[in-house]
Structure formats: structure tokens, C-alpha cells
């Protein structure tokens, strides 16, 4: 039997994990408020200053249309292709903007929206009258105290809030998400959840209309200027360390008899 198939090479693959690009999936329809509001406004503003991504005010003047048409659907592809402008936009050769959010076929509509300052090309009808949002219920849904009807993960599993009521940190803090995306943007984002992990996690467990409304109301009720996050992550680390220390202390109870072997004791008499 082969005694040792050497696997350090496979281990080394681990460091490549980060570079794996997101697999594109056809994005859902534009949704209310247009493509920008529903998919881009999560990270970008138009004239609102830089958010997670840069402000896209006047981006159609700064960049050529051809460039935008290839960059937006597949930023990493442009970087890999050695485009100097794309490379300048990203840090460390890795695009943080996922590929496949907007399909090439949708670019006409998106470019029109961008030129119009984020307004949908065809002015949408009044936002459809949805169910009334209840901020309190939204908060419980967020923290997982009340499960989503379709079994989706509670938001707080990954997202934190500045007031410390949620410490999730796999994904971004959502305290000022309402201010950042705006009502329409947030509504769109809740509807499509166009982020790699969320897209998959909620594919089989979509939020209901009522839940979306509740969450929207909850986000709107959050005060982004609330005092900063208390040292609650410290509670987790400190508590963990305390648990480990306690367990070692329990081990210590049996140590007295183990400290010295029988022969040690015998020799100490000599």
C-alpha cells in the first residue's frame, strides 16, 4: 500500500481559494426601480459620494461605452485580460465587484439609466402598494427570533448592527443600509439579494413580500448615528478564552497525581 501520497501540493491549493471567481448566473429581472436601483445601488451611488464602490456620477463621460460594456458584466475578466484602467480600479489584482450581476444583454438599459442619473429609463409607475412594513417584526426577523416563512437564514447570522443587537460579521454591517441604498435600492436588494453567498443561500428560501416590507421598515427605523458598536465581539473572544481556561482548570484537578511518576517519588527519598 502506498505509504504516503504526498499532499502538500493540494494543501497549497488552499491559498488559491480566494482567487476563485464567482460563477455567473443569470440575474433576475430588473425589478422595480430599474437595474441600477435594484442591483448596483447596494454598493454605488450616483452623486451621493463613494459607498462600498465608487460614486458613478458621470461615469458614462469618464469611461468609453465599450469599456463599460465589457467591464460591468465581468470586472475580473478585464483585470485578468490586463486592461490597465481596470487594474487601476482594483487592489491586489482582485475585483471586489462580482461578475455576472448584470448580463451583457442588459447593458443597454443600464447605460441609459446611468446617463439619466440612476433613473429608470422608463419612469416606473408608483411603487406598487405592498403590505405595510412593521419595523418591530422586521427586527425580530433580522435577529432570528422569528423565523422566515421559507426557512431563510436570519440576517443577523451574518450581518451586524451598530447598536450591538446583532454581532454577525461574515458580511457587512447593515446599520445605515437604508441611507446608503435608499428606499428603492433597498427594496430591490431585498428582492433579488444579488450577492454571491446570499444568492445561493436564499435561492431555495426566498423572503415573502410581507417579510421584505417588515425588514425594510426595520432598516428605515435604524439610527445610523447611534453610538458605536460596544465591545461585544470582545465578549465572544473573552468568553471563549474563559471557557477554555475553565476546561484547563478542570484538567488541573487531576494533575497532582500525574505530576510525578512512582519512580520519581521513590528516587526523591534517596
Amino acid at each position: 500500500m502506498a505509504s504516503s501520497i504526498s499532499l502538500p501540493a493540494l494543501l497549497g491549493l488552499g491559498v488559491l481559494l480566494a482567487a476563485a471567481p464567482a460563477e455567473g448566473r443569470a440575474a433576475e429581472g430588473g425589478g422595480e426601480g430599474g437595474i441600477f436601483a435594484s442591483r448596483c445601488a447596494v454598493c454605488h451611488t450616483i452623486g451621493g459620494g463613494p459607498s462600498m464602490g465608487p460614486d458613478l456620477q458621470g461615469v458614462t463621460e469618464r469611461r468609453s461605452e465599450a469599456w463599460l460594456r465589457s467591464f460591468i458584466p465581468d470586472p475580473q475578466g478585464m483585470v485578468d485580460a490586463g486592461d490597465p484602467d481596470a487594474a487601476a480600479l482594483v487592489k491586489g489584482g482582485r475585483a471586489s465587484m462580482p461578475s455576472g450581476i448584470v448580463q451583457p444583454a442588459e447593458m443597454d438599459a443600464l447605460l441609459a439609466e446611468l446617463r439619466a442619473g440612476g433613473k429608470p429609463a422608463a419612469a416606473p409607475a408608483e411603487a406598487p402598494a405592498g403590505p405595510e412594513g412593521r419595523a418591530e417584526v422586521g427586527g425580530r426577523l433580522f435577529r432570528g427570533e422569528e423565523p422566515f416563512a421559507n426557512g431563510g437564514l436570519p440576517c443577523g447570522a451574518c450581518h451586524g448592527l451598530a447598536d450591538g443587537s446583532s454581532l454577525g460579521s461574515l458580511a457587512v454591517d447593515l446599520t445605515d443600509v437604508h441611507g446608503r441604498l435608499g428606499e428603492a435600492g433597498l427594496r430591490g436588494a431585498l428582492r433579488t439579494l444579488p450577492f454571491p453567498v446570499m444568492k445561493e443561500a436564499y435561492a431555495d428560501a426566498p423572503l415573502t413580500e410581507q417579510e421584505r416590507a417588515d425588514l425594510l421598515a426595520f432598516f428605515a427605523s435604524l439610527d445610523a448615528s447611534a453610538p458605536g458598536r460596544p465591545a461585544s465581539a470582545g465578549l465572544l473572544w473573552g468568553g471563549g478564552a474563559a471557557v477554555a481556561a475553565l476546561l484547563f482548570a478542570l484538567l488541573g484537578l487531576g494533575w497532582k497525581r500525574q505530576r510525578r511518576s512512582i519512580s520519581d517519588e521513590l528516587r526523591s527519598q534517596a
Partner: protein
Amino acid sequence: MTWFLFAIFPYIAVTLAVAVGVVRAVRRPFSVSSLSSQLLERRWLYWGSQSFHYGILLVLGGHLLAFLLPGTLRAWNGSPARQLALEITGLGLGLYALVGALILVLRRLTNARIRVVTSPMDLLVWLALLVSLVTGVLTAGVHRYGSTWFTGVFTPYLWSLARFAPEPERLDGLPWLVRLHAFNFFVLLALFPFSRLVHLVTVPVGYLVRPWQLVVANRQRSAGAEPSASARN
């Protein structure tokens, strides 16, 4: 790449673990042993082995729980206080195991008697275990709250593997730390049949029910009779 790491390699690892493990157990049972080194060194082992084994077994049990009973876990985590308590316990056990592992690695590297019984494979196993423990502990602390999001991310992913319809794209966009932690699990699985890790599946639970005394006959009583292992007491 994602497909290789999280859809193809897992199957390679499981196949290796099962096939090579069975061949080894049948063809070379003598080589299957936990290879205890307590006789040679006791004092470091006392602190390292118990904390490492108990810590990692309980943490592994937690992962298994999230895989098999995600609903139960989700219900428990419905209250932020309960969720925090679970996370603190899990992180504590992870730290317990990590410190134990560090003690054991240090012992293996510094104690002359233990170095004699250390093979290159032992060191490789330790490297993989340390990667698992460090990335796991950091994930628990930095990418909160694993106990909940595991049920929405890894549970469906693992079940997709079990259904032979892998959905590795579920892991896209996860922080590299989490992806490394997940991939490293399959590395450990692949190492399992070639290393001392095989002792994992020889945990003698049968001892809980077997008769105290074992008597084995070296002769056939009558033609065709099988050698018998009978019991007394």
C-alpha cells in the same frame, strides 16, 4: 477552480478515505493503531492530549449537528443570548483544542523520545490539523455567527455533495478563511487512510456492550464448526 476544490476533490477525498481505509484495515490490520506515546512521555501529554481530543471531538460533533439537525440548531439560535452562549462554548472548545494541539506539536518537536516515534506523515497530519483549528477558531471569532450561517451555507452544500449533485457555487464569495477551513477538511479526509488518523474509526464503542471475558478456541470442535468466541461472566 471552485469546481475542483469543492466538487471534485471532496469525492476524491471520500473515495480515498473509504477505499484505502478498508484495504488497510483488511490487508494490514497490524498497522492500524492509535500509536499512543504515553509510555514515553506523560506530562505534556496530560495537558495536550485530553484538551485536544475532547475539544476537537465536541467541535466536530457541533459541525455534525449543524449538518444533520440544522432546524434544531436554528431554533436554539433564535434567541441572541442562546446564540451567543453557543458561540462562546464553541469558540472555547476550539481554543481548548487549539492550545492542546499546540502543546502536542511542541512536545512532538522538542521531546527526544517522541521525536523517535514521529514520522513525516505525523507532521503533515499535524500541519493540516493546525490549519483546521486556526482557521476554525478565527472563523468563529471573525466571521460571526457560524453556528447559524453554517445551516444556510454549508448544510445545503454538504447535502448537495451527498446527493451527488454538488453545488460548489454555494461557497462562492465566502471569505477565504472559511473556504480554506472547508477545503482543509477534505484534505484531512484524504490524509486519513494513509496516516495514524485511522484510529478515529476504531473508537471501541463495542466495549460498552461486549462480555467482559473473551475465550477463543484454536481448534475446531466438530467438522464444519466455526471457531467460536464465547463469553463468560
